């Protein structure tokens, strides 16, 4: 019996604002405990929230990036529950009327085909603080620095059918939020958190199976492993005649398994109602247009343009649009070097390898786009050979200056003077009469020997194409 997996994701991404969503406390990560929690964040008696404009701008920007409807009127609601990291006893969120409505993103599947994943909604809300479980004489410490940090909760449709699709979707959202600059997307610091709703059903069944919600998925790898484990667990349960219980499960990366959260058996009753301290958020066209005005060209559009304008393969285009810094870098290289194909090869090849080797970010590359473009220019005008170009790249990476400086300093300029090359060929042929005879008698393989000798004698600088042509002419029977 074949099983179908159904996955929907809820992604919480912290918005890159300077102050909190409802207070003027700073949002800097890593401050000493409770030094960035003001009276509002602490829920002192009598304090009131006022909404941060930038949080709204960033939410609208995201909505536009996923072609979603932006609500002209949205409402903040209170989600009521008691927890020590939730100072007011309620979280301000959006419930019935979120700021971002239905949207969609496209993911690339393993076979290269495209799939559209629906985004149900995205809403603004405040983050909670943190419980520190180190032992304070058997007590838990509460740090409320994070309380009130703006979050955008992005809820997908249950459109994903495998762990790999879920990861592709999560990566896509991650790419978008970083690309449009609304979040740093740092998963280690918790600025990008993914929860997965997972269920299984027999193939052909129209009804959804009972789902579980997976939490603590703080990397894409864990997301994939947790879903894989959970899907198997659910199938085994059902095949054994048992039932899946709707519950929240934590992923334990140490043991690579999900387990039920041992909270008291009680159905949550969040008692949502419109927050009377906040008024309806009303956005007019001008606000929405202004918020979306500085949206950069989006990754999908850019990928498509790279494919059509530069003739890149889907694969190359995808690699180059993995993040905005890389795509911008590539475009600058292509512009400076005048050859998009070569630019793509170098960016995806040597540069990517070097960054990877040294563990550097794109923005930390010692070789600027102009420098790499300069190198490509010298390849194109035959100043250097492709082989020597790699040496030049390494030298640039190590801080020896731009391509022209390295070529001059190391004397790597390609030898293109036919007379000079002919003189070298003459000397080599004269020194190897036996091999010359073999070639002339039909042993073509020996040709390679001569090319190698000439290149060696020219210290690799002779233009290989010219060497080929001139050698052929010289060795002609």
């Amino acid at each position, binding site marked *: 019996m074949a099983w179908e997996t159904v996955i929907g994701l809820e992604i919480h991404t912290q918005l890159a604002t300077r102050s909190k969503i409802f207070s003027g406390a700073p949002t800097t990560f890593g401050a000493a405990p409770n030094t960035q929690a003001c009276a509002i964040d602490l829920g*002192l*008696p*009598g304090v009131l929230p006022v909404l941060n404009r930038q949080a709204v701008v960033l939410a609208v920007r995201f909505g536009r990036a996923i072609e979603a409807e932006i609500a002209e009127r949205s409402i903040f609601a209170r989600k009521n529950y008691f927890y020590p990291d939730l100072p007011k006893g309620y979280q301000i969120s959006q419930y019935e009327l979120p700021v971002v409505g239905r949207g969609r993103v496209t993911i690339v599947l393993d076979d290269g085909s495209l799939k559209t994943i629906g985004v149900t909604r995205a809403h603004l809300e405040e983050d909670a603080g943190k419980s520190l479980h180190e032992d304070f004489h058997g007590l838990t410490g*509460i740090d409320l620095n994070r309380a009130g940090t703006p979050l955008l909760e992005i809820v997908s449709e249950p459109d994903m059918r495998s762990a790999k699709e879920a990861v592709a979707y999560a990566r896509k959202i991650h790419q978008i939020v970083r690309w449009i600059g609304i979040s740093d997307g740092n998963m280690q610091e918790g600025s990008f958190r993914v929860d997965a709703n997972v269920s299984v059903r027999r193939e052909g069944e129209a009804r959804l199976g009972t789902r579980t919600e997976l939490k603590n998925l703080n990397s894409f790898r864990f997301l994939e492993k947790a879903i894989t484990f959970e899907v198997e667990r659910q199938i085994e349960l059902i095949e054994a005649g048992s039932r899946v219980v709707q519950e929240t499960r934590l992923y334990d990366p140490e043991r690579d398994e999900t387990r039920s959260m041992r909270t008291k058996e009680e159905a949550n009753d969040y008692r949502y*109602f419109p927050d009377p*301290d906040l008024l309806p958020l009303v956005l007019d066209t001008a606000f929405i247009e202004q918020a979306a005005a500085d949206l950069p060209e989006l990754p999908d559009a850019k990928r498509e343009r790279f494919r059509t304008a530069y003739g890149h393969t889907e694969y190359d285009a995808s690699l180059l649009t993995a993040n905005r810094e890389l795509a911008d870098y590539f475009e600058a290289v292509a512009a400076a070097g005048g050859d998009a194909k070569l630019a793509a090869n170098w960016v995806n090849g040597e540069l990517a390898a070097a960054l990877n080797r040294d563990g550097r970010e794109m923005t930390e590359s010692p070789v600027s786009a102009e420098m790499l473009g300069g190198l490509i220019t010298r390849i194109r005008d035959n100043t250097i050979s492709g082989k020597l170009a790699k040496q030049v790249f390494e030298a640039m990476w190590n801080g020896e200056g731009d391509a022209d400086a390295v070529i001059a300093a190391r004397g790597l300029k390609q030898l293109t003077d036919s007379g000079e090359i002919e003189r070298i060929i003459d000397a080599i042929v004269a020194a190897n009469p036996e091999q010359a005879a073999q070639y002339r008698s039909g042993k073509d393989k020996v040709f390679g020997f001569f090319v190698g000798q000439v290149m060696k004698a020219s210290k690799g600088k002779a233009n290989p194409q010219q060497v080929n042509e001139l050698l052929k002419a010289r060795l002609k029977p």
Partner: protein
Amino acid sequence: MAYHIEPKPLHELTIAELAQRLRGGKLTSVELTHHYLERIKRLDPQLNAFVTVAADAALAAATHADARLARGEGGPLTGIPIAHKDIFCTRGLRTSCGSRMLDNFIAPYDATAVERLAAAGAVVLGKTNMDEFAMGSSNETSFYGPVKNPWDLDRVPGGSSGGSAAAVAARLCAAATGTDTGGSIRQPAALCGITGIKPTYGRVSRWGMIAFASSLDQAGPMTRSAEDAALLLQAMAGFDPRDSTSAEEAVPDYGAQLGTDLAGLRIGLPREYFGAGLDAGVAASIQGAIREYERLGARIIDISLPNSPLSVPVYYVVAPAECSSNLARFDGVRYGHRCEAPRDLEDLYKCSRAEGFGSEVKRRIMIGTYALSAGYYDAYYLKAQQIRHLISDDFRRAFEQVDVIMGPTSPTTAFPLGAKMDDPVAMYLNDIYTIATNLAGLPGISIPVAPVDGMPVGLQIIGDYFQEGRLLNIAHRLQQATDWHLAAPPEV
């Protein structure tokens, strides 16, 4: 031939009169503050109107005010001793909200209303007693014990701003602040024979005012005259960027409006405010005041607010729903009461809250929790918000016909202490005439009219949005023509 005129004692002077003397150098704020502190010391033990008296801070503020006055600075409130309802956060001074939960709470900041009155130079004598978290109509739910009505110590002063009302009526301060969620300024003002105005929702900032029901709460002054109320409201009102619900509406010069003639004023009398349940004596007293307005040139128009009988049911869903959420922050973790040696987290919450809150607060938290819970939200909360709309529409239609609406503030005079403590529903019905204005967000004022059996009666005047100036003027004109508002309770 010279007559010896007995000078009025300091505590009988209005704020305007006091301000004149302070400016003229005939009186210092320190003398005046001492005078009121002495009265509090002598009279408050019987009344229990104050929770906290801040004598040292008050004298320091008075000294500062005198220095300003000596330099010719300051305004009409500079050096005037007032009291704040203990619901307003006062930096460095305990803010208890009448609750054991906040018995140890020293607010780290000032409420906007407190800040503005301080900036105007008012001297704070202390914090007044109140129903716990402003939930009550008799001031009997306070952790600090009931407040007594200065007109009869066996009766309640009304609530929830009962301490402020009693303090102003007994001349323990020149004026006081109050808050009104369902009548909590107007009803105690009526029962204690003083003037109290609940402004339009959004007129006075709610920042620093401990929330009971956020969409209904509004702060206002409680004074001995409309003229004094105008002076206080002038300082308290205005836009505050810290409160999202604060109105960005210019504050008119209330004092300048006090001279307006009432000829042609259209007064609406809603038949629902004069029906069953209204004490006959109170009704007669209200009719007497209305005849007085007719003499002043007003026209009387009978109107109807058909949905007003629903205001009590609607209120007892909306207010508890909001309070159940507003009071969730009191959990024993960051401030306030924390129980001894909790077994676990749940025990910490449940015991701290059970010990910290009194029974009326718990009752309302539970009603509100129930009204918002899964399966009941539509039938209770949503339904109430819909009827709230109908109630608001009643007023909108009425104000197409009339300029103001008048009626009794409360159906009876002050009732005996303990009379309604065991019957929450009977207690709730006490606010039947005041609640609708909170639901609609309209301004309302209560002023003293002819007493019944020696106990004060309040006339309520309801205006259209942001018509506080008009209400104050209408109240002032009556106080110019009559002297009901001058009656003082016997010295206890």
